[in-house]
């Protein structure tokens, strides 16, 4: 491999390094814990003359998103980042960014919707905004994901914004060694951004604004289908899976690291009777739990779910054919509906002729600490289900901590 340049850094610094190496031209940031230091690091890079970027201080997240949306439209590579309440405040313009098919990259440093501690409810609250969503498990993945996100988002077959989620505090302020890729190699991997002037024909925009559009005799909209903008946007996200995989492969070839197939990463799933699915830092801790259980001869495995939108339906269908039970760990809850991962997993596997059993676990909400033995318990229960034993309840709020 090429020369290795490591530095011990926090997740937020790793994120800022990703921004710097991607040669971002416009960033707009409003401070909110635990995301704030990303903006500080970017400002430092700019002040030292290491990054040629316009950093726009706005009065809130509604504006930061609107600023990067406009800057992206006129041809700048843009970055925005936020956490928890800021993410919620940003909701409205996020629709505009994705509808305009603008390749903005955003870092969401998770902070739950209740209180200050991390869970995935902030980004999960944005599931309907039409953004691609990635979740990271360590600081290296944060840095690498930023670079991969620009390459994916700006691909002419994709043209969609990407949100990169990583757990606040657990990664944002935790320091560990991170390899800083070589700038020349990043430049080779990530060519300059080429804007497309107008991705959606005007007639669709017109069709969406007037009642009765698309009906016979509506000459003003030229008979355009008012649903088309939704359908095309939805299909564009579904169709991005191939590019996400391709970019991940190429990143792997060039930099010597890749993240599963870009959508999911399977860990010791060969001959696994039961598999647990985890996202973000829980996936990291889960690797230790799986190793421990394997050493005791228990056939369990892990699937790390990196890309949540678009959901890796095909990967899970393939997994569902060779495993007997899947336990989904959700660090989120859509109140009154349930865990987002659990719902999607069941949606994905419902049409299989022989479905595995699917269990749900809520863990790590509001920053609740998820320890190795907590995950072991969840995997034990999933293994029981795989072996046909009765397990109840099917969906549970994991009891975390407590005695050994």
């Amino acid at each position: 491999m090429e020369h290795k340049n490591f530095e011990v850094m926090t997740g937020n610094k790793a994120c800022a390094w990703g921004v710097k190496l991607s040669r971002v031209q416009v960033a707009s940031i409003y401070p909110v814990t635990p995301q704030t230091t990303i903006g500080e690091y970017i400002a430092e890079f700019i002040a030292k003359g290491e990054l040629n970027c316009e950093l726009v201080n706005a009065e809130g997240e509604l504006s930061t998103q609107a600023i990067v949306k406009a800057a992206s439209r006129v041809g700048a590579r843009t970055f925005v980042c936020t956490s928890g309440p800021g993410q919620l405040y940003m909701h409205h313009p996020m629709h505009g960014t994705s509808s305009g098919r603008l390749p903005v990259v955003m870092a969401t440093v998770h902070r739950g919707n209740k209180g200050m501690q991390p869970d995935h409810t902030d980004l999960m609250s944005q599931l309907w905004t039409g953004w691609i969503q990635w979740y990271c498990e360590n600081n290296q993945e944060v840095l690498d994901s930023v670079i991969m996100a620009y390459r994916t988002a700006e691909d002419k077959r994709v043209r969609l914004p990407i949100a990169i989620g990583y757990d606040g505090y657990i990664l944002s302020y935790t320091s560990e060694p991170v390899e800083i890729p070589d700038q020349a190699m990043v430049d080779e991997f990530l060519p300059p951004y080429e804007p497309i002037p107008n991705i959606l024909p005007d007639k669709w925009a017109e069709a969406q604004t007037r009642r009765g559009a698309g009906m016979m005799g509506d000459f003003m909209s030229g008979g355009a289908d008012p649903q088309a903008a939704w359908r095309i946007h939805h299909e564009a996200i579904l169709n991005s899976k191939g590019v996400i995989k391709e970019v991940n492969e190429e990143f792997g070839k060039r930099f010597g690291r890749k993240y599963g197939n870009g959508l999911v990463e399977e860990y010791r799933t060969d001959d696994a009777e039961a598999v647990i699915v985890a996202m973000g830092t829980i996936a990291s801790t889960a690797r230790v739990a799986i190793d421990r259980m394997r050493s005791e001869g228990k056939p369990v495995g892990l699937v790390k779910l990196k890309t949540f939108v678009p959901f890796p339906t095909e990967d899970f269908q393939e997994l569902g054919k060779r495993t007997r039970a899947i336990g989904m760990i959700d660090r989120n809850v859509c109140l009154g509906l349930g865990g987002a991962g659990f719902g999607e997993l069941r949606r994905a596997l419902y049409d299989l002729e022989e479905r595995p059993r699917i269990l749900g676990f809520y863990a790590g909400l509001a920053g609740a600490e998820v320890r190795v033995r907590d995950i072991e318990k969840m995997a034990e229960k999933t293994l029981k289900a795989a072996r046909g034993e009765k397990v109840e309840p099917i969906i549970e709020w994991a009891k975390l901590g407590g005695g050994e």
Partner: protein
Amino acid sequence: MIEIRLHGRGGQGAVTANEILAEAAYYEGKYAQAIPMYGTERRGAPVTAFLRLDEVRVRERDLVHNPDIVVVLDPAIAQRPSILEGLKAGGLVIANYPHPPERFPLGGNFRVTTVDATAIALETLKRPITNTAILGAFSKVTGLVKVESIEKAILHRFPGTLGEMNVKAVRMAFERTPAPIQAVGGVKEKDEEGPLSGSGYGLIRSAAGWRTFRPVWNYEKCTGCRICWIFCPDNAIGWGEERPTVDYRKCKGCGICVNECPTKAVEFKREEI
């Protein structure tokens, strides 16, 4: 894997010490994970940080519950039995404490060493920021990280005079730290008085332990101008018969009264442990 827990107060640099240690360990080829525990920190409030050192990438993302080593940056916190929570049997405590390890107040199945890091910090940095000094002690008694690596990490983070001053603190602590002994203990923790009244304190019973220095009034110089009473941010200064009175449970030792007094009637004296 070696797991370490650091205790300190906001402003002493526990989080920075943790990161410097992680970087120093990394220079020696170890993998390090430095975790600060964040809430709503204030200068003087107790803080905790955690460090994992291993030969391979650390994948655990929970906090450290059973440390091999506990490092305490503050002499008042060092007296609290809670610092021993979860410490492995036969574990090690490295404390900033002004007396030799034989006089360390806590006892049990662990080894302990002490160094007066506050005195070293005051001598070298002129401020009671004890984080770098304690690292000198850490290097000496654990041997896990060479003192040269700690110095390199400090100079990387703080280039120039500030770094040099901190390196001096590290070396001084390295020289002054005795070998650890089996903890003897037996000295009772000072009982704190009842809960504090007044808003803004939450559940804190007393802020007295936050002080490194205590403001003391010389009433002969005091003109009764009430400036200290006006400026005290914690309402710790009251007013008696034409002279200020202090509730030392509320006083965090911020020194604003010392700074504001026009007749220099308020003096700062180091708290005795």
